[in-house]
């Protein structure tokens, strides 16, 4: 199979997934208790006004018409209006994307910076205290619920030691960078950094533990291969063997997982954002669910699904380009 065909197949599969998400969220909206008109107008509105709003929203139309209308709107990027704020959903989604993306990327950075050295050390010092420490860390990291971890980090690093802020985002990264470039002052950038440290650690801990394990097992496999023995026989330094040759070969599956996990992090940031009052998609998703704001809930879920699918396609493409066996299969 050519790369183009492979890509086309992946794209079609992605579209199918997105359609499924759209259909399921639309279905949930239909069967969920509650009347959108009551949410919009509140109690006490007259029958005439309720009927008018119902008409405006197309809620009097048969379900299949509502469904087709919604799909048509999606195609042109129209996700409807929020019941609560009456603002366009697509704007409410897009304005929260940078915060969530920043958090997901920062969590990924935390994972890479901590997990890979830890995994290497753990693999090269098997059955030594460093290895026990690393495997214990990864076990604890995978087992720790992030809402609990977030609260503990706040108590220690914000309340007890006063090192980092307990909540909020101050400014966005883009704004902070622009401020640095235009004024030469790094205050905004530093403020951004201080605010993101604890949420990024919270969100990234599970991911860090996962990558540590992957790195360790990959390294252990590679270290047992003949080319390592050959390199050692040639007299190459151990550091060079481990970091230039063995780690490089170990990185292929890790890079794949990193890409895929980025999508998971975007969707999985919900709890972390809520605990740290981080103004991203997750906290907006929770507030939309609380207030029965279905257009907004749908919009966010669809955005997350689309992001996940796109990231998967990109990762698959890179992987296929790097490893022709994938397309051959």
């Amino acid at each position, binding site marked *: 199979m050519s790369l183009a065909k492979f890509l086309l197949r992946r794209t079609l599969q992605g579209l199918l997934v997105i359609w499924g998400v759209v259909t399921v969220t639309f279905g949930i909206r239909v069967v969920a*208790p*509650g*009347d959108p008109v*009551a*949410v919009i*107008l*509140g*109690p*006490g*509105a*007259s029958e005439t*006004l309720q009927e008018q709003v119902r008409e405006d929203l197309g809620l009097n139309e048969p379900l299949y018409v509502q469904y087709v209308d919604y799909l048509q709107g999606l195609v042109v990027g129209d996700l409807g209006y929020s019941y*609560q*704020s*009456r*603002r366009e959903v697509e704007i409410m989604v897009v304005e929260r994307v940078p915060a969530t993306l920043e958090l997901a990327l920062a969590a990924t950075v935390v994972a890479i910076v901590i997990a890979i050295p830890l995994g290497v050390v753990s693999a090269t010092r098997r059955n030594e205290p460093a290895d026990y420490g690393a495997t214990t860390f990864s076990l604890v990291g995978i087992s720790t619920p992030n809402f609990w971890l977030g*609260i503990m980090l*706040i*108590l220690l*690093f*914000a*309340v*007890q*030691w*006063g*090192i*980092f*802020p*307990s*909540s*909020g*985002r*101050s400014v966005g990264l883009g704004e902070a960078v622009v401020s640095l470039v235009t004024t030469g002052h790094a*205050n*905004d950038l*530093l*403020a951004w*950094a*201080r*605010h993101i440290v604890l949420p990024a650690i919270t969100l990234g801990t599970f991911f860090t533990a996962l990558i540590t394990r992957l790195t360790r097992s990959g390294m252990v496999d590679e270290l047992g291969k003949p080319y390592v023995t050959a390199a050692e026989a040639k007299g190459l330094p151990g550091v060079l063997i481990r970091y230039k040759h063995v780690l490089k070969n170990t990185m292929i599956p890790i890079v794949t997982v990193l890409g895929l996990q980025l999508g998971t992090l975007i969707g999985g940031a919900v709890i972390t954002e*809520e*605990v*740290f*009052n981080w*103004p991203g998609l997750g906290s*907006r998703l*929770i*507030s939309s*669910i*609380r*207030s*029965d704001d279905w257009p907004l809930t749908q919009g966010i879920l669809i955005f997350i699904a689309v992001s996940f699918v796109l990231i998967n396609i990109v990762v698959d493409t890179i992987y296929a380009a790097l490893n022709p066996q994938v397309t051959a299969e």
Partner: protein
Amino acid sequence: MSQHGSGWTSRRAFLTATGAGTLGAVAGCLGGEGPEEFVVTQGELAGNADPNDHNATPAYNVFDPVYEPLFDLTPDGEIQERIVTDWEHVDDGEIELTLRDDVVFHNGDEMTASDVAYTIDRQVDEEVGIPSPQADGMTGITGAEAEDETTVLVEHEVNPELAETGLGVFARVVDEEWVEEREQPIADEMNGTGPYQLVEFQAEEHAVYEVFDDYWGEEPPFDQLRFQAISTDSTRVADLETEASDVVTNVPPADVHDISEAEGLDIRTVVSFRNIFLVMPNDDEPFDSQAFRQAMNYAVDNEAIISDINDGFGEPMSQPVPEDHFGHNPDLEPYPYDPDEAESLIEESGYEGEALTLTCPDGRYLNDTDIAEYAASQIDELDTVSCEAEIVPFEDLVEMVLDGDPTTAPDFFLIGWGNPTYDSNYGLEPWFVEGQASYNFLEEDLEEPVLDQRIEEAILESQTVEDEDEREQLLQDINEEIHEAAAWVFLHNEESVYGVRSDLEWEPRGDERINPGEMEL
């Protein structure tokens, strides 16, 4: 003053050095940021920036710095002059308001009587702007019109004091021309006449204000002000402890001790106007029986709820309105905890063996789910009935309850009701008069004359009685009748618990209003 969002604290910095040294150095490199501003953190904010599209205290707190109330409302519920300098009952059903002539909106428009009349119409007439949930509070007010530049004639169908109270509590002036130019309701802009003008608004997230230089009144105490929402209790409390917030609302009882002991922080409490109770819509079995409803009151130990669950915060209730509200009946005692009496009344009602479900909102009131589960377990302990609690999102419950139709409400539910008017009418009318949003009492065949009709007629009559003593007596009688009828399981009056910086001079109000103008550092 808080460093907005910084959390950098000189007081706590490095008090505990262990383990913090390295990170402290890193954080030190990262530095502090932001201008100083006074920060108030609540559990929730407002879904949009339209002052007439909400009816919840946290939202009013966000709007009040910008959208100025017509009257000042004292903590005792008395109205005083503000934008309105004089008011007079000129005729049956008419109140004449005289306005200041030096009030300007933040966009530079002069405030006129037409704006005030438009504001009132926008609240009570769904054809003007939006259908406003504040209409219920503007009891009996039917509309307003401008007589000249500084005089407004308000038309009403009730006791003039009651109409004034509605105006005093709910009316906040908007700019007619500015509002009409915009899509309704207003999404994220504000233009009022208050001491602060809006700098930034993010729905459900934060509102940032700066001083409005052309404000007609006293300069407010803080140059910059921020109201923000943090729904997670522990994060909200941490925000205070890290000095990122200057005032936080709804401190959980479990955190009260720690904050009280913390250097530079303080706990302030006040008995709130919010009444917590269990509603028993009596359109169906078993709550159509007065004996059964009374049994529920005897079965639930509201003293224990206050002491064991709320750590002593709260006052037991005996009737629909708290003490200090006009029409409260001081002679009524809360139902005592008496499971034997409850069993006996259930037998008398003939509804033994009923399986009840108590529906409760999640996180709207102080320890609401714990309270519901506790009450349900006490009822469940009776031999003759069973009960379990079901937790639902607050919005779902509100939707079921506030549609004016008792048949769509859950069979048995916990809810709270804040009465900012300090008049029994707003504690009674919405629940006991047919056609009102939360009407849930329509007993049909208890006794002659029919109880629900008698209560409803008495409430409507009380609205038109001009003599205040006579009206108070009538309201006290109604409260007594509802106590006897056991329309609700009367639980407790909430106590508002605020965490504040200890150098803040501010006494919290029972009506949950947070007015920076009443604060000083």
